[in-house]
């Protein structure tokens, strides 16, 4: 079975992002996910000129059982549809797609997607829990061997890439180095100290072969995205950003074990879907936002979505190709490695800001098409256009 592209194309450009917002990003003692998300929501409403009463779809996400019902109660709204999807950062792309579908089908007119994360304040380590987490068995089903944390699953894959293709950790350093350069140009970013290959290589391992600089930050913050119909979008404050393409492909076989296939059979199907629906190709992508809980994610996303050949991402990411000014700027905000760990939500915000031309010193010239990719056993991608 492949996606029915003819039917998918009928909802191309039928939802538009009109408002984006974020709270401050960092460490905020006594903060909580709801307060952080609501701050971001206010900023997103202000960004587009809509009021909270316009929202008839409420999607809420965040680590630690953030409830969409409780959020709606706090906001005092009764939307038509509320939802969350408790698979951590893998949920972001699918939830953006769900919002677009709710709008394209007419079930909702305006969907607010709110994200709140107080992981730094709450002391969340993303490892060491002894409950098997549905959807994240790969990092929680074998804790009796000491296997825990999504980082370990990525470390297994990094080792496989190094061993199979002769790539190296020093080559992988190009990813966090590029993103750190981008973060330095981003007022919202947390990490600003320049990074070098030497510093990367000398840094401590968390789960070897991944170094601390290959890992995302853990911090507090909130993000909000507001999506509506193209008709409604026309008379709002800013130029709409359209959802032109959506791709998704899950991998459940073998999913209790850290993934050993590097998603070679499955992720390309998400690529076929997203490019097929949007009617654009890889060469049309002006900036790429990649879910980067770990640096190695960028390599698998580039390879499995066809930006480079299988096994060649190590070479492909050298020489500034993925930096601003390079052929394919990746994570121009600094991503999870340097800007803030908002589990893919700030990647959506950056895509919108780039397409609006709001990015100042980190603006990609003539930016018209931006793609989001998240690898994993729930692989998802979106293509946005202005």
């Amino acid at each position, binding site marked *: 079975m492949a996606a029915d592209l003819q039917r998918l194309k009928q909802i191309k450009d039928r939802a538009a992002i009109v408002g984006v917002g974020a709270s401050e990003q960092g460490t905020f003692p006594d903060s909580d996910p709801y307060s952080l998300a609501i701050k971001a929501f206010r900023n997103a409403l202000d960004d587009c000129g809509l009021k909270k009463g316009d929202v008839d779809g409420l999607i809420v996400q965040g680590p630690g059982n953030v409830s969409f019902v409780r959020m709606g109660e706090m906001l005092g709204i009764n939307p038509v549809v509320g939802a969350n999807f408790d698979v951590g950062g893998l949920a972001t792309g699918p939830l953006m797609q769900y919002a677009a579908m709710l709008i394209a089908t007419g079930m909702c007119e305006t969907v607010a997607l709110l994200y709140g994360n107080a992981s730094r304040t709450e002391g969340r380590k993303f490892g060491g829990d002894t409950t098997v987490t549905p959807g994240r068995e790969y990092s929680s089903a074998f804790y*009796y061997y000491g296997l825990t944390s999504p980082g370990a699953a990525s470390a297994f894959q990094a080792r496989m890439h190094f061993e199979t293709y002769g790539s190296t950790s020093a080559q992988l350093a190009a990813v966090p180095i590029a993103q750190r350069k981008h973060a330095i140009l981003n007022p919202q970013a947390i990490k600003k100290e320049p990074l070098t290959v030497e510093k990367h290589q000398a840094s401590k391992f968390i789960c*070897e072969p991944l170094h601390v600089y290959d890992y995302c930050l853990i911090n507090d913050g909130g993000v909000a995205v507001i999506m509506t119909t193209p008709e409604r979008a026309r008379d709002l404050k800013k130029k709409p950003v359209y959802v032109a393409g959506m791709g998704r492909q899950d991998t459940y*076989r073998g999913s209790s074990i850290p993934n050993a296939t590097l998603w070679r059979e499955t992720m390309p199907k998400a690529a076929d879907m997203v490019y097929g629906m949007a009617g654009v190709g890889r060469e049309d992508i002006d900036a790429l936002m990649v879910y980067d809980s770990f640096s190695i994610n960028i390599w698998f996303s580039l390879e499995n979505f066809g930006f480079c050949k299988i096994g060649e991402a190590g070479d492909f990411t050298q020489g500034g190709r993925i930096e601003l000014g390079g052929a394919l700027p990746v994570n121009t905000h600094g991503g999870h490695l340097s800007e803030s760990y908002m589990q893919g939500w700030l990647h959506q915000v950056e895509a919108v800001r780039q397409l609006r031309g709001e990015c100042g010193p980190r603006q990609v010239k003539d930016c018209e098409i931006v793609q989001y990719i998240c690898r994993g056993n729930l692989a998802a991608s979106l293509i946005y256009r202005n």
Partner: protein
Amino acid sequence: MDYSKPLPSILPLERPFWDAARRHELRLQCCKDCGHYRYPASPVCADCDSDAYEWQRVSGRGRILSWVVFHRCYFPSFADEMPYNVAMIALDEGPVMVSNVLAPNDTLRGNMPVEVVFEDATPEISIPKFRPAAQ
């Protein structure tokens, strides 16, 4: 001394695996219709959808597919073993298991042959681990 590390939570479906491990046998479900070995446990064959299976004793031999070394201590009960390895092991029969390899971390290599050994954690639970095997 009491075993302080995390212990498996066991579905009734997985009980025969752990009963065998207690006898220091590695047994996996094998489909009676297509012969496909599966791990972790499932009530049906992922290949041919058959409900018929038996818990077959397997060789306990395999090769290291990938491995990591934990330098961050997420479980206090592992503190004495830092840094410790976790490996993915492709069994000769096909399935991939996760385990610890009882060897110095810097001696682990891709495709290295290993064989199962059992660590008696509690009177009820013995945990399959692996050690380097002859070629």
